[in-house]
């Protein structure tokens, strides 16, 4: 029978994500098998989780030369998927380095924390592999559920529980939108599989009354996950309320996963409709960049400022998607890669400046830290300059490629708005350097201490932020999938 003959299941596709799941189980086992809240066993947990990241990365490396399709084309492990895996793994590894000292201070459930972190990462990695709307939906739920719990991890802190509930309620809505959109698209094209949808639509057979509402609902679902204006409302509250290492991890991971799946849908399922969604995305990009930057200008909490800044960055990345080119998709992925280092690096400094209990008015806490910890301030300055897109730091080339894709695709005006926005954004990033370098240190500065693991994380992030910026050619090869081309 032909259907059976076509049946192909190649589990290799799942290996990177699968490794994360296995190590999540392993973390829980280690946690359970050591009695009580033994500090020794807790200290081992992050390293077990980190080992999972390494194993997963090795699987990615093994898969790199191959192009594996599996489950009748529902999942594909190509360079695009592996590129996303790399970003998510980076975010996870840096997230773990941020957590070692911080998480035991706010909760006893350290085992659950690392297990959930790995599970969330596995879901995120699947988002890039998915070439079917059903698989996207499953992956979306896997990582979202883990993140709902993670953001409410600090149960004694009302902000944290509020963040969790808010994220869950709005996230559930977004998932609903997504599922509805997928259903309508199925109605329009007769399949949930990208390649089938694409061929149906390009032959003109799709049902437009179902197609356009379906695309709009899918867009709303994705827009929520990658916090595009006007679906961004949850972002500042959740970012501020969630434990800082979780915020750091999800600010990059969710965005990368959401964008990756979104890019695949745009370029592999509905590329023929670019005339329709191109303009819609352009408008969303303008709104997202501008609103994100303007709102960030007004923030007094460093964490909240970074939340709005992450909204603005989603806008910049979206600029790359507007022309619907392979170049833009690669640029967006490269941007997310640079963003992983500079943004998690910035959050690492927030962790260092934060005491476990209070999290407000971090701008005050940053005052004068250049006097006490010159290296820490220096690293933060690098992250801030990189986020504002000043060469020779990684963030500059992130913007460079995204805007280049827009200009090449005939959307130069969008690049103009993007650059004007980065000029606005510069102001609030500079405010952090003003506090660190130009203001007198507060009283409490001297008493803070950071863990050495955290310092390693900061140094790694800073080094990568610099070397990616100085020699981007070394890295762009990892993000040249040539999707849809």
């Amino acid at each position, binding site marked *: 029978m032909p259907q059976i003959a076509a049946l192909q299941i190649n589990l290799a596709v799942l290996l990177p994500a699968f490794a994360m799941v296995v190590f999540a189980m392993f973390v829980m086992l280690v946690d359970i098998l050591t009695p009580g809240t033994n500090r020794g066993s807790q200290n081992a947990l992050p390293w077990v989780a980190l080992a999972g990241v390494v194993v997963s990365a090795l699987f990615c490396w093994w898969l790199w030369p191959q192009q594996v399709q599996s489950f009748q084309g529902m999942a594909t492990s190509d360079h695009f998927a592996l590129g996303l895996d790399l970003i998510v793994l980076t975010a996870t590894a840096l997230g773990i380095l941020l957590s070692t000292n911080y998480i035991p201070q706010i909760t006893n459930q350290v085992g659950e924390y690392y297990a959930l972190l790995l599970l969330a990462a596995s879901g995120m990695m699947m988002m890039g592999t998915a070439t079917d709307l059903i698989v996207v939906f499953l992956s979306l739920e896997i990582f979202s559920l883990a993140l709902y719990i993670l953001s409410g991890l600090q149960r004694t802190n009302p902000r944290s529980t509020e963040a969790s509930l808010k994220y869950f309620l709005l996230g559930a809505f977004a998932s609903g939108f997504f599922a509805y959109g997928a259903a309508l698209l199925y109605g329009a094209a007769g399949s949930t599989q990208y390649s089938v949808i694409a061929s149906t639509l390009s032959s003109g057979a799709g049902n437009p009354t179902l197609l356009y509402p379906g695309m709009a609902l899918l867009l709303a679902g994705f827009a929520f996950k990658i916090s595009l204006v006007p679906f961004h409302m949850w972002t500042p509250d959740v970012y501020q309320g969630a434990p800082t290492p979780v915020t750091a991890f999800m600010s990059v991971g969710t965005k990368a996963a959401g964008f990756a799946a979104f890019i695949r849908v745009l370029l592999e399922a509905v590329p023929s409709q670019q005339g329709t969604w191109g303009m819609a995305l352009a408008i969303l990009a303008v709104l997202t960049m501008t609103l994100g930057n303007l709102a960030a200008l007004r923030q007094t909490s460093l964490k909240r400022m970074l939340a709005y800044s992450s909204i603005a960055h989603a806008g910049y990345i979206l600029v790359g998607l507007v022309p619907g080119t392979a170049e833009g998709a690669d640029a967006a992925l490269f941007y997310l890669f640079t963003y992983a280092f500079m943004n998690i690096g910035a959050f690492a400094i927030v962790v260092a400046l934060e005491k476990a209990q209070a999290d407000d008015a971090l701008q005050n806490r940053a005052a004068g830290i250049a006097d006490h910890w*010159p290296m820490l301030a220096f690293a933060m300055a690098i992250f801030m300059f990189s986020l*504002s897109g000043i060469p020779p730091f990684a963030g500059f080339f992130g913007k460079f490629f995204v805007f*280049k894709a827009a*200009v*090449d695709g005939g959307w130069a005006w969008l*690049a103009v708005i993007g650059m004007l926005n980065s*000029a606005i954004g510069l*102001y609030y990033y500079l405010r952090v350097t003003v506090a660190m370098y*130009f203001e007198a240190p507060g009283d409490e500065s001297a008493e803070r201490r950071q863990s050495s693991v955290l310092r390693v994380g900061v140094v790694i992030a800073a080094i990568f932020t610099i070397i990616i910026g100085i020699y981007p*050619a070394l890295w762009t090869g990892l993000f040249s999938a040539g999707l849809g081309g």
Partner: protein
Amino acid sequence: MAFSIPDLLSIITFLPLIGAIFVGLVGGDNLKKQLTLIITLVTFLLSLMLLVNWDNSNGGMQFLENHPWFPQLGINYIMGVDGISLFLVLLTTLLMPITVYFSNLYVNEQVGLYMVLMLLLETAMIGVFLALDLVLFFAFFEFSLIPMYLLIGRWGGVKRVYAALKFFLYTFAGSALMLVAILAIFYATGTLNVMELQKAHITGALQTWGFLAFALAFAIKVPIFPFHTWLPDAHVQAPTAGSIILAGILLKMGTYGYLRFAIPIFPEAAARFGPWIAGLAVIGILYGALVALVQKDVKSLVAYSSVAHLGYVMLGVVAMNMQGVSGAVLQMVNHGISTGALFLMVGLLYERRHTRLLEDFGGLWKSIPIFCGFFLVVVMSSAGLPGLNGFIGEFTILLGAYLKSPIFAVIAALGVILAAWYLLTAFRKIAQGPLTNPDNESSHLHDLRPNEVAMLLPLVALFFLIGLFPNLFLDKINPSVQQLVEKPAVVLHLPEPQTVKAEQ
């Protein structure tokens, strides 16, 4: 030639950067200071190798280096130097040891960071003048903002934070659109190599919009009136070394940008907007001079004089003839050393009296004659006294401007008189008259020490060298300028009658 060093340009550019790492690592403020001074001196000596091996007959790029930087896209690491950039590089490498030496004497807070920033700044500035790939240039151009921002904000005067932010935001916002223009050029021509772009013909809307984007970025940097408002704040609030570098070198990035990028890449648009820029330059000359005339603070007087002086440079640049452009290039160097020396003297005075208000001084000639003698020479150089450097530059520029459009030259010449007026007024109020304020007595004020004279001597020697033997410099500048003005000359002559008509 004597002997040549391979990759000399890269060595000059990145030696300070590598030095900065060592300065950051070694301990002890004194060691950091000495090491920084040695690094900048070695960089200066190495840069003299450019003169040793210079080929006067070659108007093109010399010491070219071309390595792939981003081969997939065709972005290359291209460095080269011609007659236009040669003296700007030498100006940078000369002013750095002087400012570092000044800082060694007077900066005692957070010395390590300060010295590291100075060295990073030197790398960025030299890179700007040597980069021949648009992205490479842009990277140096933008990076130079960071160390200067931190220098102003950390070691500056009372309003330092405001001034530093304004400086950074203005310049960054101005260059934001330039990046889009660079991307558009890249898309249209497929290259970012400046030498190739000067031959490429960019057509249509990009010719206009591209030029405007570049022109805006550089206009803010120069600064051309009315984009100058960041300058008085930054100059006055910056520490002395920062002011010297800002006025001496950073402003030249703008005028240099016009000569290297905006005008050669977009010759037609440049010709079209040339009269407008010339008009703004002339307004800047008069405005800067008039505002300088009423300043009470001698540092802001020098700051506004920069607006006026850079107006001359811009007037020469947009004249786009041999005299105008050669004069402009020479005047960039002149302004660098004259205004650098002025800020240095103001700094020396400030470290002695901790005031910069003109009314606090008077009669200093009686108490500190050596200082006043040097001050007079510097003032004369800045005012354009014949026999000194400023005269040669201004005269050639006015000649070029007159050939292009007499009306601009005539109005601009008024600025020469105004310059003499405000500079001599400042000199009179500081050095001459009765010595009324007891703080200015020689018992309170120390005259220039030998080491301070040593800082000023190279600059003063250059005043005379350029003033008396300008051809030593023009011989190297002219061939490159000739290449620059001859290529677009055909295009440039066409709209000339219209523009003259429009002005009358």
